[in-house]
Each structure stands twice: as C-alpha cells, then as structure tokens.
C-alpha cells in the first residue's frame, strides 16, 4: 500500500509521457488528477489507522537498488509521523492544485506535457519524504530539482523563462553539491546511509560540538538552504515565477521549497549534536525572513510578492528548527501549505481574470467583479498575516514567535526578528490585497469569473486555512497539542527556558497589535494615500531603499559580479579551449611525422636499395664495433 503513494504519480507521469497525444484533454486530466487523488485517498486510508494504532513507523522494503562492498541502498520507504504530515500535504494540496490546473491550463497547447511534469514533481517529492535512506532521499531531491527546471521553463519559447529555469536549477545545485558531500562524509564516518541507523548511532560516534559533525550539519544545511531558497541561495525563487501559476503554487506550498525544512527536521539529531550549525539555521531563518519581508513590501508583480513571502515564511520555519522547536516548524509548514497554495491559486484566478496581467498597479477594484476570489484570497491573506484567533497562520506563527524567545536555544534577537517579520508580513500582504481588490479599477478589462474547477479548490483550501490551526492551540488559548504530541514520536519536544503565561500573552498581544498596525499602515499607504506618506516615499533615501528592496537586496547583481561575469569572461577567454590545445598538438605532431615519412616513399627503387644498404652497413658496423670492444 505504502509504495503506491509515490508509485501512482510516477506511473501516471510515465503514461502521459508515453501516451502523449493519444489522449484527449479529458483523459489527461482524469489520469493526472486521478493518480494524485488516489494517492491522497491511500494516504488517508493508511494514515488514519496508523495514527490510531500509535505505531512509530511503517517500513516497506521494495528491492535492493545498489550494492557495493558493505554499502547497500534499497528502495525502502518509511512512513512515520513526520513523513505522514508531509505526504498528506503533498498529496492533498497537490491534488487540489492539479484540479485547479485543469481549469487554469485549459487553453494551453502543451496540456499533456504540463501534467506529466506535475505528476513527476509530486512523485519525486513523495519519494523524498518517504525515503528510508539518504540515497533514495537524494534521488527524490534531484528529481524535484529536475521537475522544477522543467516546469519553471514550461513556456520555453520565451528565453527569459528558460533563463529562470536554468537559474533555479544551477542555484539549487550549489546546495545539492554541499548535501552530496555531507552524504559522503556521513557514510565515511557511520558506514551507513539508512536514516534511522544514522540517527541512532550519531550520538555514540560524535560528542556534541565535534568538528566533523558540525561540518556535516553545515553541509546538510547548505543543501537545505539551496532547495528552500534561504539566504544566501534565495535568488532563484522570485525568478521561478516565470512558470505557470499552478507550478508556483506547487513549488511553494507542497513540494520543493519545503524539502529543506524536511531535511533539517529529519536529521534533527545531527543538528542537536552540532549546536553551531543549529544556531546557523536559526540565524539564516531570522535574517532571511526579514530581508524577504522587506523585498515583498515593494514588489509590483503579484506573484513576486507571494514568492518573497514564501522565502520569508520558510525563514520562520528555519528559525523554528534552529531554536529546537521542531514540531512548530512542521506545523507552520502545514498551515503555510494551505494558505500559500490558496493565495497562489487566488492570484492565478486574478491573473486569468485580468487576461494575464500580473502588475498589481494595473489591477484594483476587483472586489466587486470577483467576489468569490476576493473572499478566499482575503482568508489566505489573513492567515498569512496571522490575524488572531480565526486563522491557522496565527496559531502556527505565534508558536514560532513565542518559542524563538522562550526555548532553550531561543534568543531575544530571534524574537525581535520574528515579531518584526510578522509586522512586515501583515503590511505587504494587505498592501497586495488593497492594491488588487480595492481602489478604482486601473484598466477597463472586463474580468471574467473563473470556472468551478478553479474555484472549488480555493473554497476547500480557504476552509483548511481557517480550520487547520485548531489542532494546535497555545497555552494561553485552550492548550491543545494534538499535532506536536503526535509528532513527538519522531521529533523531540521543545525545551522551554521558562513557562510564563503572562509573557506569552504579552508576546501574542504584541504580535497581534503589530499585525493590525501593519494592516492599518497598508490601508493608509495604498488606499488613502495621505500627502505626508507620498512625500515620505519620494525622498531620495526612500527611493534608493525601494530600488534596493525591489531587486531583492541586490543579491542578483552581487552574484552576477562575483560569479557569473568572471565565469563568462573566463569562458570567453577560453573559447578556443586551452586544454584542447594539448590534444591538437599531438595530432599535429603525428601529421608532421607522417608527412616527413611519406616523403621517403619516393617510388625510386635505388633509394630504397640505398636505405637497405645503409641499414645493413650501420648494423654490421655496430656489431663489429661491439665484438671488437
């Protein structure tokens, strides 16, 4: 049963690739959505008894993949609480995104190719989270990278999309290389790549803070940073918006960028053994969430706002992982998957309604024209900006904000970053909502309402974005810990410095207050536009800051200068291929020898005889000389 979950999407991708044009659009939709839907159903069928039984894991060994010496890697799948949370989100949200895509991509010429890639994407991600050994995990990891490349560059006729796809692939590859080295080192020191064995033996092999384990943990973190688009490898994600909107939803919500969070959570024992690396995780998360939040504040493209908000929210997850609040990170992943998929698909509905216009300043006033999209988008936005009590984002994010300060590894700086991030989040989210749905219509397009296939997933996700939060409530509000106590089978519970309900209330009230302040500022900034604020934003420093944030803190330019241009210059210099000169020289010398020797084939018999005679004379003289000496 377990093997069917990743096998079904793979199988349907294979059928779609091989079947190609033989299928009608209806058949393609049925195969693509059906396979993910059945996988989601199997997840429920398998997951509910599994949760009730209280077992720690289900393991399935399919076959041995490779064997060399004392190394062997199998196609082994393991379902435990952590992977079940991921599998559930991937299949369930993935299914909704597939259904939505049948509406969104209905007019696209490459319908089959799109769904083949989407299925492959989901299958690779499922393999990643279900893998029992790191080799299989790495296989899924690379599969996800490949599919992201295929889908970001889906509309390949525009060279810019191809560039974005290559950028995503190459930037994540930097992290992948670090991760591969980490795997080699893990095998060298532990002699196995089975995840449970590594986690069990790591504390016996290494003491806390051992240089090797710190190095391994940092290399793993490098891999996670690349896939999850965290500082300093975050530059690929905003450009990944070149792909169709459902792809963005899939990358941001269910697959790909959360792989890094999964990896760190899965290898949590190693990070606990390497406190320096774990601090690195927290610092990267805290810095990233602030930088990306600032960048999201000034974007004009609706999808880029969402892209930066994803980077920022993954930053929250990394922060939670870094302070040892493992289950809080996974909880935020789940709620984030719901509301970010909702927001992306809502944005997609708006984009379709506006005839593929993505600039928010050319939208406006859509509240009246697209009421259903507006309300679902508003629910997603409320959840993203963590409006208290009614949204899932509030419960998951507040947990992180509180634990960033109160856990043993927590720090006041983390808390300040998290709470400032919450303020930024509320501001950029509602700036986007107000720009898109309020104000006067900026164009005279007649927005057409999307069909049911696009709207029903939005309704379902809107419900999830609201309800998913109630499985985990803080101490101050009911104290429900369904999710975290369930995850404790796999991930250790967070250790608190002190439990203070009063302080937690303070933190929550402050966060809520800042959220509402952020929304108010967004309202006055975008809708009311008072003179003072307009003048303020026209100041030279603010314009400079705006440009800096708009370009994502100029990371792209920096990398261009540091890596891309020198590389291109070297490539130019080496256009004639220096190394190749050696090999050309060998052929040149051979040809020259050939020419010289062929001259001796004069065809004149007497010269040949002369040669024979001279040879005989030389041989004889040598012989005689040797005998006489």
């Amino acid at each position, binding site marked *: 049963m377990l093997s069917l979950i990743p096998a079904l999407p793979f199988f349907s991708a294979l059928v779609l690739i091989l079947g190609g044009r033989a299928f009608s659009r209806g058949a393609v939709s049925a195969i693509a959505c059906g396979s993910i839907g059945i996988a989601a159903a199997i997840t429920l069928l398998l997951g509910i008894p599994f949760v009730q039984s209280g077992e720690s894991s289900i393991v399935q060994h399919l076959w041995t993949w490779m064997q060399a010496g004392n190394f062997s890697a199998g196609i082994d799948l393991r379902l435990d609480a952590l992977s079940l949370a991921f599998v559930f989100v991937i299949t369930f949200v993935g299914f909704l995104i597939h259904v939505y895509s049948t509406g969104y991509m209905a007019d696209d010429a490459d319908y089959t190719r799109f769904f083949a890639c989407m299925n492959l994407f989901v299958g690779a991600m499922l393999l990643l989270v279900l893998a029992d050994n790191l080799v299989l995990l790495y296989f899924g990891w690379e599969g996800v990278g490949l599919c992201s490349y295929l889908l970001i560059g889906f509309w390949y006729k525009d060279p810019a999309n191809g560039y974005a796809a290559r950028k995503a692939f190459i930037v994540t590859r930097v992290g992948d290389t670090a991760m591969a080295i980490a795997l080699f080192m893990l095998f060298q020191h532990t002699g196995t790549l089975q995840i449970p064995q590594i986690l069990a033996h790591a504390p016996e092999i290494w003491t806390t803070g051992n240089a090797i384990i710190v190095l391994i943990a940092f290399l793993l973190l490098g891999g996670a940073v690349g896939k999850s688009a965290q500082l300093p490898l975050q530059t690929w994600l905003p450009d990944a918006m070149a792909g169709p909107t459902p792809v963005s939803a899939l990358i941001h919500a269910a697959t790909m960028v959360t792989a890094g969070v999964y990896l760190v959570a899965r290898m949590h024992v190693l990070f606990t053994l390497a406190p320096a690396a774990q601090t690195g995780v927290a610092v990267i998360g805290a810095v990233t969430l602030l930088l990306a939040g600032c960048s999201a504040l000034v974007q004009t493209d609706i999808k880029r706002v969402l892209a930066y908000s994803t980077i920022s929210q993954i930053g929250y997850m990394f922060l939670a992982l870094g302070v040892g609040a493992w289950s809080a990170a996974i909880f935020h992943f789940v709620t984030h998957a719901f509301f970010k998929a909702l927001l992306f698909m809502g944005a997609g509905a708006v984009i379709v309604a506006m005839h593929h216009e993505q600039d928010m300043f050319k939208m406006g006033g859509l509240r009246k024209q697209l009421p259903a999209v507006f309300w679902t988008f508003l629910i997603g936005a409320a959840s993203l900006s963590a409006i208290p009590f009614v949204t899932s984002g509030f419960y998951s994010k507040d947990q992180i904000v509180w634990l960033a300060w109160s856990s043993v590894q927590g720090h006041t700086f983390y808390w300040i970053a998290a709470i400032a991030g919450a303020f930024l989040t509320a501001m950029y989210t509602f700036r986007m909502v107000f720009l898109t749905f309020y104000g006067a219509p900026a164009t005279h397009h007649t927005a057409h309402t999307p069909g049911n296939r696009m709207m029903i997933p939005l309704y379902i996700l809107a419900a999830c974005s609201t309800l998913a939060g109630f499985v985990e409530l803080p101490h101050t509000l009911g104290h429900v810990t369904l999710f975290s106590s369930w995850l404790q089978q796999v991930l250790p519970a967070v250790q608190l410095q002190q439990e203070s309900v009063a302080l937690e209330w303070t933190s929550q009230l402050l966060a809520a207050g800042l959220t509402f302040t952020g929304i108010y500022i967004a309202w006055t900034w975008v809708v009311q536009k008072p003179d003072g604020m307009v003048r303020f934003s026209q100041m030279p420093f603010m314009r400079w800051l705006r440009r800096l944030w708009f370009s994502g803190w100029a990371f792209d330019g920096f990398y261009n200068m540091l890596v891309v241009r020198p590389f291109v210059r070297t490539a130019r210099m080496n256009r004639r291929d220096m190394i190749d000169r050696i090999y050309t020289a060998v052929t040149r010398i051979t040809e020259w020898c050939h020419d010289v020797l*062929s001259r*001796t*084939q004069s*065809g*004149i*018999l*007497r010269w040949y005889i002369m040669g024979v*005679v001279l040879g005989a004379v030389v041989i004889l003289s040598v012989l005689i000389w040797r005998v006489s000496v």
Partner: protein
Amino acid sequence: MNIHPTTAGMTLAGILFVLGLISMLIRRNMIFMLLSVEIMLNAAGLAFIVASSHWSQPDGQVMFMFILAMAAAEVSVGLALILQLYHQLKSLDSDEASRMRG
C-alpha cells in the same frame, strides 16, 4: 708477400659483392639491376665455397648448390616481372615505376 688463399678468396668475394652493389645503385636499367643481383649472389656463393674449403667441410658446397637453384628461380621471376613492367611502362627505367610514391 705471402697471402693466405682464404683471405684472397674472401677479398675477391667482397670486391665482387661491392661491385654488384654499386652497379645496382647506379644503374637505372632493370636488366642491369638484375645482372647486378646475380653478381652479388655469386659473390656470396664464392664466399661460401672459400669458407667450406677453409674448414674442410662440405656444407658450403651444399649451400652454393642451393644458391644456384635459388638464383635460377629468382631470374625467371625477375625476368617475368621486368617483362610485365616493360609492357606497362614501355621502358626499362626503374625510376619510371614510381607510381606508388608517397
């Protein structure tokens, strides 16, 4: 002046061989080249005979018989080749037969 017969015979054989060799190198007519080869062969045969008389062994004589037989065969093949070449080139100049030069 007393020269040992073996030395004299061997010197004669050597002179004959070098004469044959030189004429082979300077002649372009193929008939003459064939003749030079014959001279060289006979020089070698003479050397065998001188050596056999020196050691009082019959092997050298036997070897000379072989050389005679081989020379007969070689001349027949050589003449046939020369005939063919003459048909093709209308000349006996060995330098003309250089169609396979590099």
